[in-house]
């Protein structure tokens, strides 16, 4: 009998946590990891899960669950781990009581992130076991194994997904016995030698970590079934892991494979044995040469090649190029490239997005805008062109203050979203105020975490489980810190935005301006109305095109096709009314 479902690896993680008897779960959203917790929310009768305000707090909550003896889960995207490294680096000294599994989703190829980084290096750095599923079934199985390992060796375990595994659905057999796991909490015992990582206790812990790593290496070498040799032609042996394994099966399927489902601690004896059994050894891995360097460090020879595979997402085509280079027995099909003359289709703020008006005004004022991460990052692109920098969550405020200190203070402001503000903007505005800066921080408060697909946050009034939560008022937070200039403006009031910002950007005092308007999609306002351009009145000035609304398209051409009247696509217009406000000729009006 089987119990099969088509699940993404993200969904499979949630199902596995449920089956493994996980009780405490905390995460902060981030593509491609977000659906893990959206799925976990379905199991709220058994798993007490929440959206934390950021990844550091999320991991601390999961650590608390583990300390109290419960199986706990935490999830984040790769850059989230940068934020959560601090608690991880020391909880790994302490070691888990209740099983603790941390799922981190990398984004090779930078589909939806600010950078590309390889979590495997951080797993080694933190000396934690690392599991790397290649598909959803493996994600389902490995989460359960990770809980076993975590409790047996008293260590937090990491599971690394990638965009491709997270967002690929494959068939998963949940097993006949699928249901909520009943795992008793381990009894909590106060023990400062074990849980207080002060120097006097941290030193013996450090020795334990060293010993534990070697025990885990034995496990990864001889015990776990996820590290396995697949027989094949021994003239070439391939060491691989994660989704790269699937590409290897596709392109080098006839050769011997060492598939590492648990790649840290590196199973050195198994690797040595495999390398000794084949003529040549090739390592195929996505992103950094983490495994390859470890194989080389063991003094083993590895095939070198020219094909670039050390960055960006792998795919079968790239491995085909590798095969052509190494074996010369394949032809790369001639690419019939798509027509180059096509207009690009970059992502855009939705039609009717409440963020649009602010960027229109900032662009008009010629402001210097340190930016942040969210849907509003799209304000950086033409035609809005109203953002100068994007680094990491919360960086808008600190970097604006740094620019000010460097003497650059011309119409300078920081722009940050509400979820990002709660994540790591509050410390930033506190810092500006304390250190005497004059930065204007503009918070785009749409009461939701838009970019990652609309997750609730402390401004939403709801929790992940759907319960009512207190609403944090951002203006009140700023005032409580000591800000004297705090303004709240309706995001759809372009005139007032312009007036207030003109005053604030040039002021010597620091200020916080909160721009409020609901995320159009989240509020279900996608069919809230329709506007129309009167072609008689439209002078083809192009003013409304500067809004960058996808519903405003080119209409009739004038001046020999050099200019175009505006036309509003009624299917795409959501009736926000921004364009009506910016049209100087009253050519735009509401028809519904």
């Amino acid at each position, binding site marked *: 009998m089987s119990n*099969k479902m*088509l699940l993404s690896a993200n969904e499979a993680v949630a199902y596995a946590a449920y089956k493994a008897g996980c009780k405490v779960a905390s995460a902060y959203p981030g593509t491609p990891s977000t659906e893990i917790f959206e799925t976990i929310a379905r199991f709220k009768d058994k798993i007490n899960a929440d959206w934390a305000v950021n990844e550091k707090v999320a991991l601390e909550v999961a650590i608390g669950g583990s300390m109290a003896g419960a199986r706990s889960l935490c999830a984040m995207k790769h850059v989230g781990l940068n934020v959560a490294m601090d608690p991880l680096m020391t909880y790994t000294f302490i070691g888990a009581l209740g099983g603790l599994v941390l799922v981190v989703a990398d984004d090779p190829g930078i*589909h*939806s992130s600010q950078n590309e980084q390889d979590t495997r290096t951080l797993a080694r750095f933190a000396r934690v076991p690392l599991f790397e599923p290649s*598909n959803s079934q493996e994600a389902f199985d490995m989460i359960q194994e990770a809980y076993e390992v975590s409790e047996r060796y008293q260590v937090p375990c990491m599971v690394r997904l990638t*965009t*491709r595994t997270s*967002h*690929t*659905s*494959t*068939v998963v057999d949940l097993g006949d016995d699928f249901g909520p796991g009943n795992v008793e909490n381990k009894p909590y015992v106060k023990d400062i030698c074990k849980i207080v990582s002060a120097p006097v206790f941290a030193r013996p812990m450090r020795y334990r970590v060293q010993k534990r790593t070697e025990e885990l290496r034995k496990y990864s070498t001889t015990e776990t079934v996820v590290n396995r040799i697949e027989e094949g032609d021994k003239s070439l042996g391939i060491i691989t892991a994660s*989704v790269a394994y*699937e*590409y290897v*099966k*596709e392109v080098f*399927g006839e050769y011997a494979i060492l598939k590492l489902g648990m790649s840290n601690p590196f199973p050195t004896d198994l690797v040595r044995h495999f390398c000794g059994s084949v003529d040549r050894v090739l390592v195929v891995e996505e992103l950094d040469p983490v495994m390859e360097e470890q194989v080389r460090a063991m003094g083993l020879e590895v095939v070198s090649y020219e094909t670039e595979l050390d960055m960006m997402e792998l*795919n*079968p*085509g790239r491995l*085909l190029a590798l095969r052509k280079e190494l074996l010369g027995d394949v032809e790369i*099909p*001639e*690419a*019939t*490239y*798509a*027509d180059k*003359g*096509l*207009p*690009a*289709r*970059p*992502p*855009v*703020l*939705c*039609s009717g997005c409440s963020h649009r008006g602010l960027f229109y005004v900032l662009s008009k004022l010629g402001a210097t805008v340190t930016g942040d991460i969210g*849907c509003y*990052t*799209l304000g950086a692109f*033409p*035609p809005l062109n109203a953002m100068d920098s994007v680094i990491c969550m919360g960086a808008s405020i600190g970097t604006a203050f740094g620019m000010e200190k460097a003497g650059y203070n011309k119409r300078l402001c920081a722009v940050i979203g509400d979820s990002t503000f709660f994540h790591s903007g509050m410390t930033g505005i506190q810092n500006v105020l304390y250190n005497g800066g004059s930065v204007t921080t503009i918070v785009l408060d749409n009461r939701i975490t*838009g*970019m990652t*697909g609309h997750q609730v946050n402390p401004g939403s009034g709801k929790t992940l489980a759907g319960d009512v939560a207190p609403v944090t008022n951002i203006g009140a937070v700023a005032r409580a810190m000591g800000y004297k200039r705090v303004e709240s403006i309706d995001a759809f009031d372009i005139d007032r935005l312009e007036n207030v910002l003109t005053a604030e950007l040039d002021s010597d005092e620091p200020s916080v301006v909160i721009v409020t308007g609901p995320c159009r*999609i989240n509020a279900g306002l996608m069919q809230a109305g329709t506007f129309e351009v009167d072609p008689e009145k439209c002078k083809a000035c*192009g003013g409304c*095109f*500067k809004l*960058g609304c*996808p519903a*405003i*398209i*080119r209409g009739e051409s004038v001046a020999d096709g050099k200019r175009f009247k505006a036309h509003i*696509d009624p*299917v*795409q217009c959501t009736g926000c009314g921004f364009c009506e406000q910016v049209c100087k000729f009253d050519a735009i009006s509401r028809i519904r």
Partner: protein
Amino acid sequence: METVNITLVGVGGQGILLTSDILAKTAALAGLDVKKSEIHGMAQRGGSVISQVRFGDEVHSPIVHDGASDLMVSFERIEALRWRHLLAPGGKILINNIDLAPITVSSGQQPAVTDLQERLDAEYPEAVFCDAMNIAKELGNQRCMNMVIAGALSNLTPFEEDLWKETMKNRIPAKLLELNLKAFDRGRAATA
């Protein structure tokens, strides 16, 4: 069964991911091994979206080689050209007869494509076109456009109509099911 590769492309917000999900679940219901991958880019709406579905006896890579898609479904006409390199020689294409002007055109950064239909005809002499938006409007709800396309797509896959409908029943909320089933039937009939 030899692995079949299907690529669905279009613009964010058009319901591509639901369509590919229903396709993949129908293949799974037929007892096949399936992999469905999707990339949705950065914005909630408006960017290019691509999803690939592979099914057969055993499927490894979730990604289809360039030039190896047996069937491509484009929810928008410009996107049909953009992803031309994915289609296998002799592969089939289903094109939704709708244009969504990219922001790069309205903002004047890039010229509009003025000879779109000629280019489509030249690249894909045997394309199947589907007026899914008009059909959806006739049914009173633009949002079921994707299921009109699913109906048209079903003509090009080896799965029985009933299997498709069973997946739709499992996947679509009850109050929208009737409309979506109608949309599916219309798409199927329009391109039969």
